[in-house]
């Protein structure tokens, strides 16, 4: 059984240094060294904070498995792939690989604009690790797949961008290795070609017993391709198991009912910079469904402070079907307290101006910075709601499609 493991990741971590490493000049480095030797803990040090992109990730992947990797932006997916494909090295931990790894993180790696399509197939193929003989054998099939046969002896600088990516994908799709690392962005071109790409990936995944790591934000394709899925959250392994469970966790569905939502395990979006406070619970009070026919929506929130928080407010944001925000109600100074403290509060949202329909919401906790701009501390997808009102005879019937969702 143990022999079947083709990829073993042991307690792998990766740190990045934030700040000015890149732009610094030799002079800065000398000055810093001088200050350090004097024992001065200078402010420059403050720039170089360590950011942990990946922490203590352990995984075993067996031969023939097709593993999806999901997680919000900044969760560490790309970092993990970069480590496995040896583009950068881990700060901690070891990775063991059995077999040949091909990473398809980008289409057209190493394409040179001056060279013809045919020359670029050879160049790109060799860079990705194909043997010349292997490329010779697959050349016809690559050209055929790319749909670029008429232009194959033209320099790619004269290609349209669509042709360029089609050709590039075709080379990548014909790679032959034991472990394939694929990124969803590989599905390129027009819709028709994208489907062709995904079909090709599926074909690679399902036949020939290859091991595949597939990164995606598109849950449908993960469902389609993978038989196991891992979820990364803030650089840590949050889940490893069946695709269904993983997708549920990722979407936060598991911890949600019609009138309550548990946010203790909710995956926060990657853009969130602060974690001073975390909402743990939201609930419609005294309701057993999410249909509102009166103008008041009572909401109960529970939260936990991670740092000291003062005068934090909450925004209840309403979205239309297309996730386009159209209304927000603000409640000031509802959260405060010292680190570690838990609390709860209740707000009443005024729905009187919002016209009947089904809406999604977001709950965002914020504080004001000195310039009165909001700094978001937490953001979660809120409970859905449906507003229904009895029609009053003689009143104009509302057409939300043309007039929007708010009646002033």
């Amino acid at each position, binding site marked *: 059984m143990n022999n079947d493991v083709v990829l073993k990741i042991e307690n792998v971590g990766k740190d990045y240094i934030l700040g000015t490493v890149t732009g610094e000049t*030799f002079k800065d*480095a000398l000055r810093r060294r001088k200050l350090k030797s004097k024992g001065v803990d200078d402010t420059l040090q403050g720039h170089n904070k360590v950011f942990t992109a990946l922490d203590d990730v352990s995984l075993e992947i067996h031969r023939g498995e097709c593993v999806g990797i999901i997680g919000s932006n900044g969760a560490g997916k790309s970092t993990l792939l970069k*480590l496995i494909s*040896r583009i950068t090295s*881990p700060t901690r931990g070891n990775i*063991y690989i059995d077999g040949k790894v091909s990473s398809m993180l980008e289409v057209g790696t190493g394409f040179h604009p001056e060279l013809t399509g045919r020359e670029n197939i050879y*160049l790109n193929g*060799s860079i990705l690790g194909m043997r010349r003989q292997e490329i010779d054998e697959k050349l016809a099939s690559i050209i055929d797949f790319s749909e670029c046969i008429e232009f194959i002896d033209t320099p790619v600088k004269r290609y349209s961008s669509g042709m360029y990516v089609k050709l590039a994908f075709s080379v990548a799709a014909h790679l032959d290795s034991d472990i394939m690392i694929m990124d969803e962005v590989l599905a390129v071109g027009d819709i028709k070609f994208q489907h062709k790409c995904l079909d090709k990936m599926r074909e690679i995944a399902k036949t020939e017993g290859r091991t595949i790591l597939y990164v995606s934000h598109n849950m449908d394709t993960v469902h389609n391709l993978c038989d196991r899925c891992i979820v990364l959250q803030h650089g840590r392994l949050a889940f490893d198991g069946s695709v269904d469970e993983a997708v549920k966790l990722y979407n936060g569905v598991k911890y949600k009912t019609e009138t309550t939502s548990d946010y203790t395990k909710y995956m926060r979006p990657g853009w969130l910079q602060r974690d001073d406070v975390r909402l743990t619970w939201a609930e419609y009070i005294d309701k057993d469904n999410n249909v509102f026919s009166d103008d008041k929506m009572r909401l109960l929130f529970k939260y936990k402070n991670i740092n000291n928080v003062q005068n934090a407010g909450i925004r209840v944001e309403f979205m239309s079907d297309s996730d386009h925000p159209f209304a927000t109600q603000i409640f000031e100074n509802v959260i405060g307290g010292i680190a570690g403290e838990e609390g709860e509060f209740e707000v009443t949202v005024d729905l009187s101006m919002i016209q009947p329909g089904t809406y999604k919401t977001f709950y965002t906790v914020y504080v004001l910075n000195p310039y009165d701009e909001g700094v978001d501390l937490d953001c979660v997808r809120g409970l859905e709601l449906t507003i229904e009102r009895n029609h009053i005879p003689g009143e104009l019937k509302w057409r939300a499609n043309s007039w929007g969702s708010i009646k002033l």
Partner: protein
Amino acid sequence: MNKNWTTVIEPKVPLFRVPVKEIIKYRELVWTLVKRNYEVQYKQTILGPLWLIFSLIINSGIFSFVFGYVGKFSSDGTPYFLFYMTGSVVWDFFISCFGSNTGVLLENSYLFGKVYFPRLIMPIANILFNAIRVGIKFIVTMVAWLFFYLAGDAQMIGAKILFVIPIAFLMSMMGTAMGLIVSCITIKYRDFSHMVGLLTTVMMYVSPVIYSSSQLPEFIQGVVYINPISSFVEAFRYCVLGTGEINVLALLYSTIFTLVLTMAAVVLFNQTEKDFIDII
């Protein structure tokens, strides 16, 4: 539990390690890259590699005029044209190995950031490409030699011309090692990319590329020999033209310098390549 893993990725890499096996596995990539360099350089040109020959002839002509005809530098009795031609061929090999590798990490970061292959492949491909270029120039030089020989102005070449190969090899090693070191340092400190031009000018003028060291006062000669390239240039010219002399001590110094520098470059490159992509 013991299993033969093909690859083990660890946070630390050994100080001195040349992944010979892997490089051999990727040998076809080396050729592909050499071919790419060639094709890219001469795409949409009518004369193609003939430009190499023109630049060599024109360079040697200008050198002969400025330093020989106007400046009356000594060339140990060799025709000026031939003297400067051999000088610039051998200098060209060194400087192109140096120059093409000073930016090897930065310029190829778009590749290195997306796909893995032994990073040393790139400098190796650069050396090979330059070897081919300079090889062509060397052949032209030999044609020029034949011309002067038939006119009775040059000596017959002997078996010592075979020593050209190890000399060229050492020079390319030194150039590449210097290039790699600069390449590694410029990732953090871009200052060094500004130094390259200055350094090459100094190295060229403090070496017998355009004059023969025998005409210099003893003290200055010593200074010239500190430049590790000097003895190689002289030895090269001696092997081809049979004029001048070989300073064995200086040659030994240059060889040892080259070997130490190469070791240092490999160590530095190994330590840099593993995660330079994070810094770049």
